[in-house]
């Protein structure tokens, strides 16, 4: 084992973890500012110029808060649950490449932490671990609201993980590999010199399913059932305070960043962009911009749509997203076979997907318009 290689890994891992944690802090500010502007407010602007020191003020407040542990809580698991929630959120993006290789001072630097040949599988497995933290937090609190929140969260995350995984499958099929670098390089180039070869163009419906499923996966509005304030006070983190609460909060926002990075890599071309071949340092810039835009999408959706009812959430996951994403996998596979006959037939994938999505929308619309459904 080369010592320099180990050092490089350590530094890259450390830097990426710091980027995620600092990003989490500033994501809270970003969200508060964007939400405020959408609600005709200004948002935090007192701590520092334009409120840029607000995350630090929040952190200091949370650190100095009293940490309470409920008397009848399972102390070990209660303490461990925030950690179990945070760790997957931080390590999940280890396989996401933020740029091509870079030569700095004659040293060849790869701008990714780990290059696993089953990168997508790694993401799926780590995303599943995050569920444990939440359900354990809910259970160990010995509080019925927390318990309900944890259970809801688990059910929701398991249900939407299937649709999420199947939307990953279409990206894997299109790239022909599970390696993140292969997926990114499969999205390089342009059609007709203008349309980027991103998978969002080839598989728009798959991307839409990915975006919807990730909203449910990271418990964001309009799928923030686990922390439906009106019903469950705060859901699984009702009994948490101080730094333990901050960890759960951090996990939630870090997961947002992680899922945006994964989405940007799988469907929006990763670090691809104009001139990235000539200037490799543009790669991290492009993926950063894409992550910011995807995060804005999440905030935007939160500001717009009301929370949907829990039974409808589950019905949407199982009865709409699962069949639709299965159909998309089938269409993608069929399109790839057709493209082997004639490369132009690749247009079959987006057209057939949009057709299937149209059928799904029409069927949802018909169901929601039935009178007996509204009464239920």
């Amino acid at each position, binding site marked *: 084992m080369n010592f320099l290689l180990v050092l490089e890994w350590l530094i890259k891992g450390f830097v990426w973890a710091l980027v995620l944690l600092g990003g989490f802090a500033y994501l809270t500010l970003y969200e508060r500012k964007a939400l405020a502007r*959408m609600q*005709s407010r*200004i948002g935090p602007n007192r701590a520092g110029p334009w409120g840029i020191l607000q995350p630090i003020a929040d952190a200091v407040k949370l650190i100095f808060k009293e940490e309470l542990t409920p008397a009848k809580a399972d102390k070990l698991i209660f303490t461990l649950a925030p950690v179990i929630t945070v760790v997957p959120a931080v390590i999940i993006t280890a396989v996401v490449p933020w740029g091509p290789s870079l030569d700095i001072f004659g040293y060849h630097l790869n701008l990714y932490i780990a290059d696993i040949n089953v990168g997508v599988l790694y993401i799926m497995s780590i995303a599943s671990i995050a569920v444990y933290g939440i359900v354990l937090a809910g259970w160990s609190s010995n509080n019925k609201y927390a318990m309900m929140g944890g259970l809801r969260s688990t059910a929701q995350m398991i249900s939407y993980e299937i649709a999420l995984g199947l939307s990953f499958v279409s990206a894997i099929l299109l790239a022909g590999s599970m390696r993140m670098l292969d997926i990114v390089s499969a999205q390089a180039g342009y059609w007709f010199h203008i349309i980027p070869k991103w998978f969002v163009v080839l598989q728009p419906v798959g991307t839409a399913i990915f975006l919807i499923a990730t909203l449910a996966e990271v418990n964001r509005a309009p799928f923030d059932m686990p922390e439906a304030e009106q019903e469950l006070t705060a859901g699984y983190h009702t009994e948490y305070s101080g730094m333990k609460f901050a960890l759960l909060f951090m996990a939630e926002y870090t997961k947002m960043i992680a899922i945006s990075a994964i989405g940007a890599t799988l469907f929006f071309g990763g670090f691809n962009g104009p001139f990235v071949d000539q200037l490799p340092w543009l790669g991290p810039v492009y993926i950063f911009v894409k992550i910011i835009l995807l995060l804005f999408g999440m905030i*935007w959706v939160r500001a*717009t749509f009301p929370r949907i009812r829990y039974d409808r959430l589950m019905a949407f996951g199982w009865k709409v997203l699962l069949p639709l994403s299965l159909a998309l996998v089938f269409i993608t596979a069929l399109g790839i076979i057709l493209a082997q006959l004639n490369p132009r037939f690749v247009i079959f994938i987006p057209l057939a997907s949009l057709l299937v999505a149209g059928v799904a*929308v029409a069927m949802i*619309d018909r169901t929601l318009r039935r009178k007996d459904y509204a009464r239920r």
Partner: protein
Amino acid sequence: MRVVEPVVELARGLWTTLRMMFDKPVTIQYPEQKKPVKARFRGRHVLKRYENGLEKCIGCALCAAACPADAIFVESSENTDEQRYSPGDRYASTYEINMLRCIFCGFCEDACPTEAIVLGDQYELSFTDRRQSIYPKEMLIEPVPADGKPTPQKTKVGEFTRSVPAMKDPQD
């Protein structure tokens, strides 16, 4: 069979929130910017003076009697021509309002026969100590007008015998 409309409806919702981003925020940066209060705003009480500097309050305690929250405490003393605070026989030697009790109903204003107590436009009434909630007369009384003298004044005998000023127009 509606395919496009449901999606368009969702997009319209998103468009509404995005458009609002470019609206002017309604926020007022409070300690730096202040909105003027409305004409009939009921803020902190002010004890008024006549133009010559004499206090309007005659210590009758009708305000204290009218107060539903029992927030006002009045103690009156005798005026003399040597030491005159207000027209008539008596003046309020102690006038205290407990701002924790006051509900800003304005009944004291209505009860006052000399229009001495008025709910002004001051609304920044925060304090850090419970004892500071009691506003004494020195805090409530308005400053002496430019052409008046501070109380107590030395006045001519028989000049200020009426506590309540005579009405100019009895129809009023």
